[in-house]
């Protein structure tokens, strides 16, 4: 019992010290709120943290403004994420929350940030709702959204002549949205959808039944509206059952470089997917990958790492432009300044942030290399096609964001 009391006293002393320290030096504090222990850890998590820290270090070195980046694990639970965000804003002096993979958590935190007039830099947010019906003037969506994925992959395949589709879809909001978005592009491009199978999520590990069901509908493309381990299982089993030898193409609607590496090139070769970043895209992305390498501890530099870097850097530039005092007083003003200033970073090149908070980024269609083409463990993708930034994002008028003037 005494131990307990002493712990409390220590904790109180610690708080007092940190409070004094804040009053004196007061570094600008940012928090990366991400999945550090769950299914999206490898796609975001430590890589996102590395990207944000890289941006903070480069900015501090260039300007002399001290920036501190902390990290939190939202465990993919909206209530846990919301609690951490509240604590960060109220007690720890955090000015901006970064990353937020898992749209449910992102939307919860976005509401809190708006209420407290802070900033959300959503790099890991995929849902188009984030800059649509539930947009916030305090939030940015930086790296990608499901519209970009559906358009990049769906459009490209239909144009190659793969015009009849069958979907295997994870039976929850994300899977349904991805299927609906893709269906729109397939039909708009003159293709047709033959059917779909919704499988129970997350309780499914064997997809062979769904794959064979899809095959019996004789489509040219099987669209996989799922992600992570489910996607990897689907691809492994499709190859096992010889679907591709029968001439069927797989369209992976949310696949990342991390999934490719997890599958291995022999299994993944030839697959197509859309992303907004790849480390080996050009000289600037390669330079970034080299700089951040020591923080990635052997992992690949992925889109979330790049997105958190780009978003954090642009945020810091806007803060400097606005002045530290005003930036602390109003997150809304910082975000407005971010939208007014053109973006430019090594990962995404020059660009801009639209009124609704969507950062305009080209969508790149990649194909997985064959083992013979690859020269290293991370040399896995080659660029096939590019959707220009203005076309990769949903038209502003279609989003239904309430504060956007039409």
């Amino acid at each position, binding site marked *: 019992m005494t131990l307990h009391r002493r712990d409390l006293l220590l904790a109180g002393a610690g708080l007092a010290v940190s409070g004094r320290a804040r009053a004196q030096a007061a570094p600008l504090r940012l928090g990366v709120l991400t999945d550090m*222990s*769950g*299914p*999206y*850890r*490898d*796609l975001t998590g430590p890589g996102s943290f590395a990207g944000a820290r890289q941006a903070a270090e480069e900015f501090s070195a260039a300007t002399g403004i001290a920036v501190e980046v902390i990290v939190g694990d939202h465990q993919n639970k909206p209530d846990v994420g919301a609690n951490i965000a509240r604590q960060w804003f109220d007690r720890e002096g955090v000015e901006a929350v970064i990353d937020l993979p898992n749209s449910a958590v992102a939307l919860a935190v976005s509401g809190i940030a708006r209420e407290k007039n802070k900033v959300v830099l959503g790099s890991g947010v995929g849902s188009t709702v984030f800059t649509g019906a539930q947009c916030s003037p305090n939030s940015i969506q930086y790296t990608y959204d499901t519209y970009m994925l559906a358009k990049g992959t769906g459009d490209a395949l239909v144009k190659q002549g793969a015009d009849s589709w069958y979907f295997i879809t994870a*039976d929850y909001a994300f899977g349904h949205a991805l299927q609906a978005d893709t269906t729109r592009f397939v039909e708009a491009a003159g293709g047709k959808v033959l059917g779909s*199978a*919704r*499988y*129970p999520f*997350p*309780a*499914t*590990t*064997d997809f*062979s*039944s*769904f794959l*064979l*069901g899809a095959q*019996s509908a004789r489509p040219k493309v099987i669209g996989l509206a799922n992600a*992570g*381990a489910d996607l*990897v*299982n689907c691809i*492994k*089993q499709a190859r*096992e*059952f*010889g679907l591709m030898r029968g001439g069927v193409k797989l369209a992976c609607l949310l696949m990342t470089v*991390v*999934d490719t*590496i*997890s*599958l*291995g090139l*022999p*299994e993944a070769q030839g697959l197509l997917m859309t992303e907004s970043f790849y480390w080996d895209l050009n000289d600037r992305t390669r330079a970034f990958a080299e700089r951040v390498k020591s923080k990635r501890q052997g*992992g690949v530099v992925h889109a979330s790492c790049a997105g958190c870097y780009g978003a954090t850097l642009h945020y810091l530039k806007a803060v400097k432009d606005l002045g530290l005092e005003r930036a602390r007083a109003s997150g809304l003003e910082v975000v407005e300044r971010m939208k007014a200033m053109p973006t430019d970073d090594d990962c995404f090149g020059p660009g801009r942030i639209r009124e609704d908070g969507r950062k305009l980024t080209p969508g790149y269609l990649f194909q997985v290399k064959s083992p013979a083409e690859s020269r290293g463990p991370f040399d896995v993708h080659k660029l096939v096609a590019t959707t220009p930034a203005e076309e990769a994002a949903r038209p502003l008028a279609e989003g239904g964001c309430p504060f956007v003037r039409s």
Partner: protein
Amino acid sequence: MDSFLDLIETISGRPAPLLFGQLLLGLINGAFYAMMSLGLAVIFGLLNIINFTHGAQFMMGAFAAWMLLEWAGLNYWWALVLVPIVIGFTGVVMERLMISRLYKLDHLYGLLLTFGLGLIIEGVFRNQFGSSGLPYRIPDQLQGAWDLGFMFLPVYRGWVVIAALILCLATWLVIEKTRLGAYLRAATENAPLVQAFGVNVPRMVTLTYGFGVALAAIGGVLAAPIYSVNPQMGTNLIIVVFAVVVIGGMGSILGSIITGFGLGIVEGLTKVYYPEASATVIFVIMAIVLLARPAGLFGRA
């Protein structure tokens, strides 16, 4: 033959090839269920412990196969021999250090301990290897597929069914038909008496737990080439497997084998008619069985 196929199509309302294909796939999945629930049944039957670490041990089996390949260059066939021994040994250590302290207490304590251990093991693996999964190839000898007319059957899946059948049969024979098995069964009925005859009962119980764990590990090795090798791979499977054990009757070895294969087929059929319910159908059956026969289909009340 054609008229027979027509008859099936008329009755089922689905194309016969699709129906046969799904039945066969159900059988393959059933092989995994049978193998996993067998390990659980052996452990419960002899130790009275509900082993919630089983999913984590299945996952450890798959990871151990990957480690042998990546770090030691030992292929699939070596893994099939070495992994059950190594992972089984970790089970022995676990039983000696922790589980053996709980035999005198209520079932609930064993359940909580093994559940907690499962979570810890999963967390450690996720920290070490990440969440996205590791690649593991089907061995060259089992690559390819047979064209059965109504479907493509990958050679590897056929091998899984055969391996599972052999394992299940061998386990059943050992426990029901040998002297060792007789000791084990006697020890569950009356341990002090068996000990009085000079049989080292605690050691037998330890080895039994190790054997149950080894069965889970072999399941993991068999699963590695077809499922994504990731830390949460066991969690998804284990819930279904528990339902299988409950339906078959806790501790009934034959019951868990038959129910494992049977439920795999039922699940396969559900995928033909209403895929959304394929994860639920097993639990619906479980509820019905529990209402009608609380001890399970093959259990002794």
